């Protein structure tokens, strides 16, 4: 079960966000995981499915 999702951005050496989103920080079955943007990854595929179904929103990166 995916309960939270937030974009991960690339950061520079001072933790300043730069560039594009590079992953998703998600809480999956109660565990926080870093999910890559790989369609073959089952967690990313499930996030995409839930977003398309309106069941999940991915929050902006910090």
């Amino acid at each position, binding site marked *: *079960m995916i309960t939270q999702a937030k974009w*991960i951005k*690339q*950061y*520079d*050496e*001072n*933790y300043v966000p730069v560039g594009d989103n*590079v*992953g998703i*920080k998600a809480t*999956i*079955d109660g*565990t*926080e*995981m*870093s*999910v*890559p943007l*790989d369609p*073959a*990854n*089952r*967690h*990313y595929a499930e996030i995409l499915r839930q977003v398309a179904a309106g069941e999940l929103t991915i929050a902006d990166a910090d």
Partner: protein
Amino acid sequence: MSKAAELAALIGSQTALSNRNLIINGAMQVAQRGTSFSSAANDTYVVDRFRGKRNGMDNLVYDLSQSSTSPDGFGNSIKLDVTTAETSSADNEYLKIDTKIEAQNVQHLKYGTSSAEQITMSFWVRSSTTGTYAIEMYTEDSNKQITNTYTVNSANTWEYKSVTFVGDTGGSINNDNGTGFLISWFLSVPSNYKTGDSTSWRTYNADGRGYGQTADVASTTGEFYITGVQLEVGETATPFEHRSYGDELARCQRYYQTILNATPLYNYRQTGNSVAKTFTYINEMRATPSFTLTRNSTIFGTVNTGAGTDGLEIFGASTTATALFIYQSGTDVSAAVTATVIGDAEL
């Protein structure tokens, strides 16, 4: 028949004498996530590659474990122990154990052609619930299913079973790293999953997922064990192909691996507030994995625990390697932590 003739017949009926088992970890040897899961959550991988899965069943409570109870010639099994039974099973509620096979590993079955191969599943089972159980084969790429059944005749007794499935001439399996087969051993099936005759390949319909099943493990407290799972080409089950623990572990690590295990990481920064370590995985993974990150301790220096996951973050991951950032704060120019990094690329 002479021994030589028996051997010749065996060779003639099978495609391989080694590497014929399409199942990874069929002897339930490898359990990287742990060996015992009390009141197991849904989708718990009790041993590598094998998962306990339920849908609904709000009363049901069960433990999952890697058990040393096993038939002769095996050291382990999966044990599913129902501690609180389901009092009223509704439509669509089920309990099963399943495993998946990667699509590119089953291309020799020639699915989607007129030469599609028969396959035979064999395994050892022990259950406190006698009766008929269903096994479902599902091909994700063609969205098709077929079921077969086996019968547990004696309660709490190891029994050897084998079932054969005809090849699917009408549905192909992509040559890629996706799911080829989803194989489900149903332990409890709702009535609306038993009405559609799925004993030959057909387009998936939930009404046939557990066709023919009478046993219901979830309806009473009791135990279900399984081990020695083998899936092979042909209409005959051959003796289980034992592989070493190391061989099975390496196969499992394509899907799940502990990359760092409370491993010390020493870092020095010249400028800025973060440093990165790059490391390769133990084995190439099926897809870019999801990561679970844990900073076990800080050996020295100051970690910015408000950044990333408790001061750690993954960047630039691939199927073979990744970078791990460690966010620092303050004026220290060096820091050291111990970290655990787990990669999950399950199907």
